[in-house]
């Protein structure tokens, strides 16, 4: 578990924190470059790389063709030969276009070559629903990546973590994905000006509580915190855990919390079936079965693609209300 954020700093939005994370990483490593679709001239369709082309030039900020497999392949080859690529594949839904490069090349190269390859590749992409981007631009596919030995996966939820995750990822010597959240781009929060890395594989407790441990993945952290605020009025105390890294997963922090609260709930925006909530629930029952006073609750999206129509999309995603209701149900209060 990590210490809470230093509060005496300026506040900037998540979107700017991403830019700063990439910018400072490029300063830190001359062998680092950013490549992806519309990252240079356009500064990304999400505006996350604005100004980087002017600062670093075309050699290091590289617009690519719409070729996700080509982009990831380029990153693998460049990393294997001494560079430190930062790749952007825009919407994480586009993983499908490059899954061979991700799953069969990037993830496995080190292992299948007997430890010879070192691949310091960072892949940035935007996940999550909530903007009526429909079924192919709204998914939360972190489970795909977590299932692949050789990869690491971070899901920063705050501006502080966005910058710190990117810097940590670029410093990392293994392939690592940083799944950003498009609905969080406008969230503001304190972000120190100097470079810093948040530790990979360490969860953070966003709110301490005593009645139930809520493991919230990605943007669900904010929904869980809202629910916690609401339930506090009724004297129900939620402990909100933000794993921050989903691969490797900080099981110890979760288990310690469950041992304290005796109740657990996992909430993610991804489809519930075969989502990482199932894995976390299994780990809790393996390691803290005797501490549990109720079955582990899981909240996730229904087994359907993300709908376009706003009321349906709203119903599709777990929110503070459902988190609160599920907490009450688990606690029987």
């Amino acid at each position, binding site marked *: 578990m990590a210490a809470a954020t230093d509060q005496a700093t300026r506040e900037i939005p998540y979107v700017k924190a991403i830019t700063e994370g990439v910018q400072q990483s490029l300063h830190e490593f001359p062998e680092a470059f950013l490549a992806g679709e519309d990252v240079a001239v356009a500064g990304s369709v999400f505006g996350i790389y604005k100004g980087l082309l002017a600062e670093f030039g075309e050699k290091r900020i590289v617009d690519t063709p719409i070729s996700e497999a080509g982009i990831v392949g380029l990153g693998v080859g*460049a990393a294997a030969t001494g560079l430190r690529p930062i790749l952007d594949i825009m919407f994480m839904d586009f993983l499908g276009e490059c899954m061979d490069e991700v799953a069969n090349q990037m993830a496995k190269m*080190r292992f299948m070559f007997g430890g010879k390859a070192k691949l310091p590749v960072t892949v940035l992409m935007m996940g999550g629903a909530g903007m009526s981007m429909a079924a192919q631009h709204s998914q939360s596919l972190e489970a795909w990546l977590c299932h692949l030995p050789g990869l690491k996966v971070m899901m920063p939820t705050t501006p502080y973590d966005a910058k710190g995750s990117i810097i940590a990822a670029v410093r990392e010597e293994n392939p690592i994905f940083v799944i950003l959240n498009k609905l969080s781009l406008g969230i503001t929060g304190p972000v120190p000006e100097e470079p810093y890395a948040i530790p990979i594989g360490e969860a953070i407790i966003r709110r301490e509580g005593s009645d139930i441990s809520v493991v919230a993945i990605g943007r669900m952290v904010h929904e869980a915190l809202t629910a916690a605020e609401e339930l506090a009025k009724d004297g129900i105390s939620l402990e909100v855990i933000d794993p921050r890294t989903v691969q490797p997963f900080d099981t110890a922090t979760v288990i310690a919390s469950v041992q304290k609260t005796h109740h657990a709930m996992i909430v993610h925006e991804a489809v519930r079936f075969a989502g990482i909530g199932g894995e976390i629930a299994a780990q809790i029952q393996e390691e803290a079965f005797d501490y549990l006073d109720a079955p582990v609750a899981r909240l996730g999206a229904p087994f359907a693609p993300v709908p376009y129509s706003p009321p349906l999309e709203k119903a599709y995603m777990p929110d503070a209300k459902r988190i609160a209701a599920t907490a009450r149900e688990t606690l029987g209060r």
Partner: protein
Amino acid sequence: MADGPSNEVLLDIHERMVRIRIFEEEAGKLMENGKVPGALHLYVGQEAVAAGVMAHLSDADQITSTHRGHGHVVAKGGQFKEMYAELYGRVTGYCKGMGGSMHISNFDIGILGANGIVCGGPPIAVGAAFSNKYRETDQVAVTFFGDGASNEGAFHEAANMAALYKLPCLFVCENNGFGEYTSQKRHQAIRDVADRAAGYGMPGVIVDGMDVIAVYEAAGEAINRARRGEGPTLLECKTYRFYDHVGVRGMGIDYRSDDEVKEWKQRDPIKLLEDRLAEQDVLSNDDAAAVHERVRSEAMEAIAWADASPYPAVENLLDDVYYNGE
């Protein structure tokens, strides 16, 4: 004084081809006799391609290879002992026994891996070429792939990016006429993969892949062009695999005629070269036979060494999933 490749180069090319042939013949025996596990895709028949290209490369130049990759690795300087040990799944292998036939690599001499995924290599080679340009070296990245791989989307993405960024990269298509068991006529409407080059904005050249000197000349032109910063080339080598898709005799699938195989074997690239070297008094038949003999005894020694090597320990299974600091 006659012109063209020097005697030194010719003998070097010959040695590389013989090394590939003998490595593969012995590997094939090991597989068919059940001595090594897994599937071997043997390179016999295609030696001129690997040898003709690799004769231009230094250890610093990178290659990506294919599932039929032993030939590339041998020609790039892979050592028999570590290669056979890898086939045996032993800890002394190039990949500590973790990769096997389809993943032999040696980064120290620029081998960024054989690859079990058809068209796995080209995007990675493009990345290496990008890196070479970024680091302002004169290294060249060469990717070997087959006619079948040229139908993969990854090929098009890689070729487009290589040409777009004018990368020091060479695309070597080893057109052996088959994607696994499907003949080229049945897997693409074109016959010359080189025709595709124009679509990406790079030159496409066809060369007789059974004639190592033709390959050597063409590859030299393309590699020099890449080193000069003039961009990638697609070099299509028309060749043939003498053995089956997998193994020597293979799976007994009826997909090509014995006559066809026999016809191609008449243009055995090693025989073709040896005839010419004898004709030019570069290497007599007896001296050529001595090379074969020497290489074969090296292979036998390497096999014995590999067979005597230990397996990797089960407790080390997770060691190299991630880099954890050296």
